[in-house]
C-alpha cells in the first residue's frame, strides 16, 4: 500500500491505495466517486476522462501514485447548470460516455481560444460515443459557446 495526498475536486485528500491501482479505480472504489466510467481501459474511449492539473486525461492510464501533489477534478465537480446546452441538444443517450464528454466539453468552453487552432471535432476526438452520432454533442458545445459569448457580451 502507498499513501497518496492530492487535491480532489478542490479538497485536500489523502488515500491509501495499492501500488498497482489506477486513478480510475481509486476514484470509483475508494473515494465513492462513480461518475468516472470505465469503457475500454486502454485510453481510447475517454469515458474515464478527468482533469489533472486542469488538463483532460484518461484515469484508466494513470497510476494513482502519480497524482501525488496534483489537482484532480472529476465530473462530480462540474456545475450542472453549465451542462444544460448539452442536454438540450441531444448530446446524451445511454450516458456511458457523458461524464467524459461533459468534462472535455466544459474544458473547451473554459478556453474557447483553443478553437483558433483546433476544430471542435479534433478536440472531442478522444471521447467516443456509441449512441448519438456526435452531432448532438458538437451542437451542444456550439450552443454553450454561443450562450457564453452572449452572456460575456452583456457583462
Amino acid at each position, binding site marked *: 500500500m502507498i499513501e497518496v495526498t492530492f487535491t480532489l475536486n478542490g479538497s485536500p485528500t489523502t488515500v491509501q491505495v495499492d501500488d498497482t491501482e*489506477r486513478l480510475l479505480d481509486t476514484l470509483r472504489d475508494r473515494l465513492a466517486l462513480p461518475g468516472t466510467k470505465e469503457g475500454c*481501459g486502454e*485510453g481510447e474511449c475517454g469515458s474515464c476522462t478527468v482533469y489533472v492539473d486542469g488538463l483532460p*486525461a484518461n484515469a*484508466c*492510464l494513470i497510476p494513482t501514485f502519480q497524482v501525488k*501533489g496534483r489537482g484532480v477534478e472529476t465530473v462530480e465537480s462540474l456545475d450542472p447548470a453549465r451542462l444544460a446546452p448539452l442536454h438540450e441538444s441531444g448530446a446524451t443517450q445511454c450516458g456511458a460516455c457523458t461524464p467524459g464528454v461533459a468534462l*472535455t466539453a466544459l474544458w473547451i468552453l473554459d478556453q474557447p481560444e483553443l478553437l483558433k487552432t483546433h476544430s471542435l471535432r479534433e478536440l472531442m*476526438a*478522444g471521447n467516443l460515443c456509441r449512441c448519438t452520432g456526435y452531432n448532438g454533442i458538437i451542437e451542444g458545445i456550439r450552443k454553450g459557446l454561443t450562450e457564453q459569448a452572449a452572456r460575456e457580451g452583456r457583462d
Partner: protein
Amino acid sequence: MAIHQPSTLSEACALLATHNRGSDRDLAPSPLVPIAGGTDLYTHWPQRPDEHAKSYLDLSGIEELRAVRWRNDSLTLGALVTYWRLIQDRTCWSALPMLVQAARQVGAVQIQTRGTWAGNIANASPAADGVPVMMAYDAVVELVSSEGREEIPLADFYQGYKQMRMRPDQLIRSIRIPRRSFLFQRFEKVGSRNAQAITKVGVAIARSGAGWRVVANSVAPTVCRCPTIEALLDDKVTVRGPDDLATALSQDIAPIDDIRSTARYRRRVLARLLYFALRESCSAFE
C-alpha cells in the same frame, strides 16, 4: 512491486545505479521500470498481472525534466515534455512545425496531455509518430546515468526491433533538435481514421542545408531513415510516378503483414505518399 518517486534526476540515477546495473543483477532487487506519462505502460493494465509485479521509477515528480528551452540554434525538450505542451507553443508552429503536426495526430487530447516525446522514443515502437519527425529534424538523444551523460543521434539510436543504445541504468534526460531553415517539410500519417489510430504507414520529409531527410514509420522493425530515397532526391534523379520510387524504397524498408496492414499495402502507400508530397517541391518529379 515497489514504487520509487524521486524529485531530482540525481536521486533517480542513484536508484537506477543500485537496481539496474548489470554485474550485480543477481544480487540486486528487481530492476526498475521508468514511467513518464504511462500511456504506453498502463494500457489494459488490469489484464497484465506480470507488469504489476515489477517495480517502477516514477519520473513525473522530477520538475527539472519538464523544461522546454528555445535557443537560437536549437530546441531542447526535457524528458517530461508532453505533446500538448508543444501544441500550445506558438514558436514550435513556425520553427519546427512537423512536431506540432505529429503531436496532433497522436491519439487524442487526453493522450497528448500525458504522453511524452521521450516516452515515445523509449517505447521503441516502429509505429511511433513522434520519432520520425524528430529523426527527420536530426534530433539528438541525451542519456544520463550516475556515470555521466552521453549523446546519441536519434537516427543511430535503434539497433533492431525494440533494441536501443540505452543501458537499463540510463534515462533519457532530454532531446535536442537543431533549428534550421527548411525548404520543405511534411509529415504524413495513414491510419484507419483520423484520430485514435496507430499508423499503418507514415513518413516525415525535410529538406534543409543539411540535405534531404526521409524517415518512415511502420515499415521496418524500427522507425528508419531511407538513405536510398534521400540520395535519389539529393541527386535530382527524374521520377515519373510512384512506381519509380519502389526500387529505391525496397532497399530502405522491410514492411511486414500484421494486424493493422499488409506489407504490399505499406510499400505502395509509402511510394504514393512520397511521390505526391514531393511532386509539389521537386522539379525532378514529373
